[in-house]
């Protein structure tokens, strides 16, 4: 199994449950595991009955499980403060206000949260020293956009770099007769910054393609299946292969002798779900790696272990030098 494992899917299908169960399994299997929640509405805290924050925190009762919850809001603010600090060092106070407005504006644009989240993703993938990093992602749309960012932003930065290099080059040419050019390509902080960003995006793209595995959590209903189909398509179009599907929230079958209204309802429901599961098995290229029954209680504590047992996802780390 690859080092970074992502769980995605429609809202409310139980991504947190499944990813927590998988993280539990990895940790119990002796792997040094980190579970990263990127959903702004974090619920890992509820699963483990423990508060987490932006730094990996060891989970009580585990030897090798850590959890972190990324808060994009905080990441945006950090970024904002960082730039402002630099602004104070670099620019004369007279124009700081003017530029301040632009910086504020940039951090209130719709993409800012995603960009901040994406940066934190990259940080985690760069710095985490764990054997396995499990990502509990936000509902499909957000995650998909996030994962398509490297390509998209990389192209954009490329164009910016080109323009900047062209203008610096012209400035150098304009310095006829040994004059000092207004700007030089060597030591230009803008070019350096853009290159660094570009490097970051390339790293992310490469890591997602080569070292990450994606699982989609699906419920046995039409809407969820349809959304999953779209998600598989758009992930593939980004060059990211979905490794498998996890069916969650399956209805339990009543005993044969039961024949009340409840039992009849359950029997109907189970029959429909079986059809849906067959549909999933037949129409998707990806294997269905688990079919997890619904629980009457919230999945947490001991229940996590029983859910983890139903997950047929390989835990062992991929042999190095594959």
């Amino acid at each position: 199994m690859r080092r970074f494992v992502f769980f995605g899917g429609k809202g409310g299908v139980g991504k947190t449950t499944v990813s927590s169960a998988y993280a539990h399994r990895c940790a119990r299997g002796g792997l040094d595991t980190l579970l990263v929640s990127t959903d702004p509405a974090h619920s890992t805290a509820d699963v483990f009955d423990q508060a987490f924050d932006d730094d990996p925190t060891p989970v009580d009762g585990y030897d090798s499980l850590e959890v972190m919850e990324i808060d994009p809001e905080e990441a945006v603010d950090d970024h904002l403060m960082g730039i402002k600090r630099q602004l104070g060092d670099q620019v004369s106070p007279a124009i700081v206000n003017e530029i301040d407005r632009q910086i504020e504006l940039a951090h209130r644009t719709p993409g800012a949260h995603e960009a901040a989240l994406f940066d934190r993703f990259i940080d985690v993938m760069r710095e985490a020293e764990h054997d396995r990093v499990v990502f509990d992602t936000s509902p499909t749309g957000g995650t998909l956009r996030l994962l398509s960012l490297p390509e998209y932003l990389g192209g954009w930065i490329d164009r910016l770099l080109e323009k900047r290099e062209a203008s610096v080059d012209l400035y150098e040419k304009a310095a006829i007769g040994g004059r000092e050019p207004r700007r030089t390509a060597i030591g230009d902080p803008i070019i350096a910054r853009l290159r660094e960003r570009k490097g970051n995006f390339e790293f992310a793209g490469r890591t997602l393609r080569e070292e990450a595995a994606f699982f989609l959590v699906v419920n046995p209903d039409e809407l969820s299946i349809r959304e999953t189909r779209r998600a598989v398509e758009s992930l593939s179009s980004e060059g990211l292969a979905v490794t498998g599907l996890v069916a969650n929230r399956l209805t339990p079958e009543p005993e044969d002798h039961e024949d009340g209204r409840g039992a009849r309802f359950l029997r109907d429901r189970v029959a429909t779900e079986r059809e849906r599961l067959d549909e999933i098995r037949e129409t998707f290229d990806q294997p269905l790696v688990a079919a997890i029954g619904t629980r009457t209680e919230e999945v947490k504590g001991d229940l996590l272990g029983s859910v983890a047992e139903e997950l047929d996802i390989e835990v062992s780390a991929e042999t190095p030098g594959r």
Partner: protein
Amino acid sequence: MDLSHRIAAFRETVEEWLRGLYHGMVSHRAYEYIEQEAEDQEDAFLLACFPDAFGIPSPVSYYTAELLPYLGPEFEQWERRMWDRGSVLERKGHQFHY
């Protein structure tokens, strides 16, 4: 003052004039021309970086905001230029001394 000195002085004056003339007619204008082109390129760069300054949302303004500390003075001048510029012709017209 003997003749050789007077010739040397005369040549010096002529050289200075010629250099001035060449500078004024050719090199300075070439310099200006290239530099203005560079400025145009820079304007395009800034516009690509910060279209949101003009109400066009940009997917990368979160990242390009990092450049602002280095672009400080340029940014402000640029913003003013962009708001003031009447037409492309006006800017291009600068490049010709009639």
